[in-house]
């Protein structure tokens, strides 16, 4: 416990010196706050007004209006809850499954190790879209909640991470300090969680941020397959409308429509990436060479 407190204190103090981590943290915090409180501050009216479509950004409509004549800013703010909620939960599950199975595969040998490897390989090669179609057929009538949907998304995201983590663990487990732990008869959980996990943790954090994009894409797929509740303010759905239904790329006066949606998606993912990179720099002794 005291060790954790020391680590946290160390992290927070280093946070001050790591601009990347700080900026990333601020961006993520901004979107999380937007997801929690946004809808109470910026009311949303989804009433379409075709004559007011593609209005340029103004004080009344900070991001302009979309193809339906609806305020884009209000949709971005109100859609943040679904985006952040689904993407982060899905990424969390993907990282959790990928990390556990990746470490197991990397550390364990023999038949169990091979079995885990086979599971990872199977999930790596299953084409996700046909599999989602089958799942859509199976769960067509189920009212899935956010956790269930996130688990479905995570099912198709965890395998590459598991493969990469297992490779990292394989290289770490032959290090002297692991051998030392083994010679001291330290239990398996100690070796896995105390010796190995801290070394792959930054890598996992970076992966978590990278998974956000994939999770967002999958969520849109699920909505279009009827598996997830359709939310027209989900940023992915908004972007789909802009590009494929409204043809905003072919209309100069609609430039702002996809622009602001893409900007927010990029910002969220970028925030996640630099936060993860910052943390890696903070916790990884090799990258903290300046100290």
């Amino acid at each position, binding site marked *: 416990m005291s060790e954790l407190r020391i680590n946290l204190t160390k992290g927070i103090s280093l946070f001050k010196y790591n601009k990347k981590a700080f900026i990333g943290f601020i961006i993520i915090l901004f979107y999380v706050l937007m997801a929690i409180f946004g809808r109470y501050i910026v009311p949303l009216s*989804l*009433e*379409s007004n*075709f004559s007011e*479509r*593609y209005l340029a950004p103004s004080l009344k409509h900070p991001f302009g209006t979309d*193809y*339906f004549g609806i305020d884009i800013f209000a949709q971005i703010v109100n859609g943040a809850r679904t985006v952040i909620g689904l993407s982060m939960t899905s990424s969390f599950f993907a990282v959790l499954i990928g990390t556990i199975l990746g470490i197991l595969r990397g550390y364990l040998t023999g038949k169990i190790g091979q079995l885990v490897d086979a599971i990872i390989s199977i999930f790596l090669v299953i084409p996700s879209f046909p599999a989602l*179609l089958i799942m*859509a*057929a199976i769960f*067509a*009538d189920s009212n899935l909640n956010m956790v269930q949907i996130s688990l479905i998304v995570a099912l198709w995201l965890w395998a590459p991470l598991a493969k990469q983590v297992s490779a990292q663990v394989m290289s770490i487990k032959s290090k002297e300090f692991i051998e030392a732990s083994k010679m001291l008869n330290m239990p398996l959980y100690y070796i896995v969680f105390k010796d190995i996990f801290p070394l792959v943790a930054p890598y996992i954090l970076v992966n978590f941020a990278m998974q956000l994009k994939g999770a967002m894409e999958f969520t849109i797929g699920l*909505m*279009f*397959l*009827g598996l997830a*509740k*359709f939310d*027209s303010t989900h940023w992915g759905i908004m972007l789909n409308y802009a*590009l*494929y*239904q*409204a*043809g905003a*790329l*072919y*209309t*100069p*006066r*609609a430039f702002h429509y996809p622009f602001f949606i893409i900007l927010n998606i990029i910002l969220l993912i970028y925030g996640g990436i630099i936060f993860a990179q910052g943390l890696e720099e903070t916790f990884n002794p090799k990258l903290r060479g300046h100290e």
Partner: protein
Amino acid sequence: MKKTLIKIFVLFMSLTLIFSSFNFSFAATKKTSDLKLASDWPYPFHGNPFGPGAVGGAWWFVYEPFAYYIPQTGQYIPRLAEKWTINGSKLTVYLRKNAKWSDGRAFTAQDVVNTVAFIQAMWQWPYEIQTVRAINPNTVEFTLWKDAPTSFMHTILTDGAMGSLVPYHVYSKWYGQARQVAELGKKIFYDTQSGKTVSDETKKQYEKLSSALRDQVNKFSPYKTLKRMPVVGAYEPTKIIQSEMVLSKNKYHWLANKNTTERVVFRRWSSNEFVWASLVSGELDAAHPNMPKDVVEQLKFINPNLNVKTVSDLSEIALIFNFNNKLFKDLNLRKAIAYVIDKNKVKDVSVWQANPAGQYYTGVLSSMQSKWVNSATLSKMTKYTTSAASAENILKKAGYTKKDNQWYTPSNEPVEFVLSVYGPHNDWVLAAREVVQQLNKFGFKVEMKLIPDGMRDQVMRSGEYECAIEFGSAWWGYPHPMTGYARLYQWDIANITAFPSKEKFNTPWGEYSPFDLVEELRVNINNSKKATEIIQKLAYITNEYLPVVPLFEKVLPIYYSSARLTGWPSAQDGRWSLAPGGIERLYNLLITEGVLKAK
């Protein structure tokens, strides 16, 4: 060294740019007698109409019907047939004597007999044709089954599959088998229809024969085996790759001398955006993608040669209800929904070029309403102008209550339901989004659910929906109100919604069942006075009892370029109405008759 490399790179890039621009300007100015379109086709191409994907967009260029029918003028344009006569249930078709397959063989009545046997065997349709026989090489006689509607004569004459799908000289080795399967299939069908029991042994025998035939015919690829696909149509597929399908002129076609277009070139319709871009760049001469209003304006600005003509697609998009759900059994709720929905807004965001649904929901397409429903009948009907107040009055009178912007039924249950919509149909999704928004604003709790790709039929037929966006009345096949009413009260819509169409409904003329009225209309289809009387009753029932709530009449926007071609019909020309259900028919008619040609 570095500098030299950079110089070489810059030189290489400059040369590439110069040559590609030469190539581009050459391609742009080169005069060809091609018609460039966009479509889909199976790849690898097999040339077998029964194989997966059939022949794709080449259909109307390679197969010819006996005649084309122009819905706007009611005129038949003879194609494979020179003329025809109708005598009771017999249709005699006199084939064009100078019609030939593209390999030079004569097209005869035996080809028609062969085709009917094959389609009945492979598609289990059309059993409405009881017999077909060759009177002589140029005359073929169809006899309709006793219960077949007389309107089926129209289908025989105009369906592209009926005459020239299966050349006898190519498929003759399976003719005997096909005939056997078709005869047995018809026997089972007629027995079933007349309430007789079909023995399991007969069914098993049919399955055995049918699957043996299918196995052989489905595998056959004329394009691979014969290295060509003999066709009776004006064009034969000659070069097919993944991205492009080229059809070359059939020199034996009876209109070959008039036709100056040597090739029809299809680009793969990979996405609407690809088609938009191809129209702008002049890579396509015509296409019919759905296009948002602003994109159309931009495209016309960039490419002033681009014109647009919209024609009715002979169908309406509607809100349909599952009548097994007790919520929708209440006419008051359906009427309230009809009043709440602002159809113009739905049309604007969904398909801006569509024809408005109008204020009466008669089951007759709105663009055809004035022709079929008289003003006296309309004056007896409810007029559905968008009015939340009218909807509220209806609901309150029926005992519905509203608390905290949520409506409750007389039994105090919230009015909540899910609106299902087929995901791949973008315009339907946009319409559903708007409908959901409007109904929620009024105080119903409505959620939208997308039906995944390929699952529409399954969801609709199994009734796993509460309310959905679907085609309502549709006049496909035989463009007449009877077709639309049959769809609403006897066929697809009646089946998937479980609307009680056999029940009697009150009308100013007495009590009638719409199911029986459709039957009566079918019998009296050629008696225009009687038919009009029946249509008034059906229109009244449809408007007052709302089996569906129409949102808009679907249109087909045809974008065509006059940059390379001349001879496009004027906006008022009736031939445009040939496009719904097979737009290539229109192009084929225009180029084979030498009307549309290269400048």
